[in-house]
């Protein structure tokens, strides 16, 4: 465990010094984060300019879902996607053999292989959106709701990480999946809307098959104090179950790994 922690810290330091080497990116990424925030908020703005509530969600509450969405997206683009791109490349070129040779769990090495530190701007923007939403509502969350809301944020991040590990495992069989990150991004994009806005088949898909609801809608409802205890437990259990399943799939995939170079 201590070794794992040290490896992660070193990887982080490498990514950080990589990012510091391109200091002009600091400005570019900051500006991009602002532009993305505007782009993310616009559809919601359009929707609520003509409606007061949609499927039981008023504008400030929906804004909290967007805040969670931006936060999880920042983590997706800051940690998960860069690592996935690196992994796909390693598998294609055969360099993944060297990762397997190292005396550290391959899943940890792969998940932490590359960071985009500048995504911290997006994280700050997301926090600002949530604070603004509560300011619009006129009152903040209770301490208990805040704790549960934060806990479910972690559950949401874990659920997303599980989906990502499944994609990474899939790339052992179908090699050229460079656009997988775009698919992940496109599907995940749905998470900006409260899941109740969707109807019928899509709501089922986004709650159970591709559980984007776990990633944003439920944590936001918890923060708003709208989630009963049973659902909280179910959401947390669902996230953990996904994590366990993805770990099993990863180990199965790695047993079937046939190197590209040998």
């Amino acid at each position: 465990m201590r070794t794992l922690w040290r490896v992660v810290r070193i990887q982080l330091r490498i990514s950080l010094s990589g990012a510091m080497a391109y200091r002009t990116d600091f400005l570019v990424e900051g500006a991009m984060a602002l532009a993305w925030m505007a782009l993310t908020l616009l559809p919601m703005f359009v929707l609520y300019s003509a409606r007061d509530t949609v499927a039981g969600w008023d504008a400030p509450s929906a804004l909290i879902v967007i805040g969670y969405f931006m936060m999880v997206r920042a983590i997706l683009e800051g940690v998960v996607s860069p690592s996935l791109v690196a992994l796909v490349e390693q598998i294609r070129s055969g360099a993944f053999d060297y990762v397997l040779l190292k005396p550290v769990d391959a899943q940890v090495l792969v998940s932490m292989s590359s960071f985009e530190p500048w995504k911290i701007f997006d994280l700050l923007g997301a926090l600002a959106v949530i604070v603004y939403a509560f300011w619009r509502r006129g009152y903040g969350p209770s301490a208990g709701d805040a704790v549960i809301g934060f806990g479910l944020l972690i559950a949401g991040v874990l659920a997303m990480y599980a989906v990502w590990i499944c994609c990474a495992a899939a790339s052992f069989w179908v090699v050229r999946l460079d656009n997988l990150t775009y698919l992940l991004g496109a599907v995940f994009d749905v998470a900006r809307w409260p899941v109740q806005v969707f109807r019928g088949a899509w709501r089922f898909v986004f709650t159970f098959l591709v559980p984007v609801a776990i990633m944003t809608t439920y944590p936001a409802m918890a923060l708003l104090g709208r989630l009963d205890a049973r659902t909280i437990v179910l959401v947390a259990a669902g996230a953990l179950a996904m994590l366990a399943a993805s770990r099993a799939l990863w180990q199965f995939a790695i047993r079937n790994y046939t190197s590209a170079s040998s």
Partner: protein
Amino acid sequence: MSFARALRAAPTMLRIGVAETVAYRAEFLVWVLTTTLPLVMLSLWSSVASEGPFKGYSSNDFVAYYLANLICRQLTGTWVGWQISEEIRTGSMAMRLLRPIHPFFAFAFSHIAALPFRSAIALPIAVGLLISSGASSLTTDPAQLGLVLVSIALAWIITFSFLFAIGSLAFFLTKAMALMNLYFGLFSLLSGYLMPLDLLPSWIGRIAAWSPFRFMLSAPVELLVKPMSRGAAAELVGKQALWAVAIVLLAMAVWTRGVKRFEAVGS
């Protein structure tokens, strides 16, 4: 001169494109899944509109709009920008430069060859749905429907050249990928991919109406679902043709400038 040579090589290059497509099946499935985003937006807006028309759009109008959107996007979407910037970054572009055909045509043919495969799954479903459930919101004027085909072809040229230009920026910049993301953000908003342009706040709508993004997707969709006078339809396609010429020239300019700086990293 170079154009005639490209034309002569066209059948072979199309065959290569088909072979590439068949070789990377999984990638195609992923791509097809990625382009079905309009279906999600369709679900969203049609459930919003089921409580009453939204800014003049009924539930049925949304169905027609997003299905038309899906069809046009399937036919015009390309990922050439990612390919080019990746090949420049890794240095494998050097191989292409050795060949006697301009990469613009080489990429174009390979993408055209992939088109039937990419649209094989989604297109029949979308067309079927559009005719069965959104027919009342479609245009019926045969001349306007004919223009749709021209407009889709022009939209393809504009999208392809624009992405070709952005991809070529990798000759100058190390982080062209970030630009690509910015492109996609602007495209989703200003091309009508996310939502019909007339739903946007009016000042953004005015920008969108003049931006090239509108002519990458929204123009053929508008021709499909919006009844308009023949004059207006012709004007739309005319503007689109002008944009097509301008952006092809831009792509060529960026490419020729950039290729002089090419250092073929790694080879």
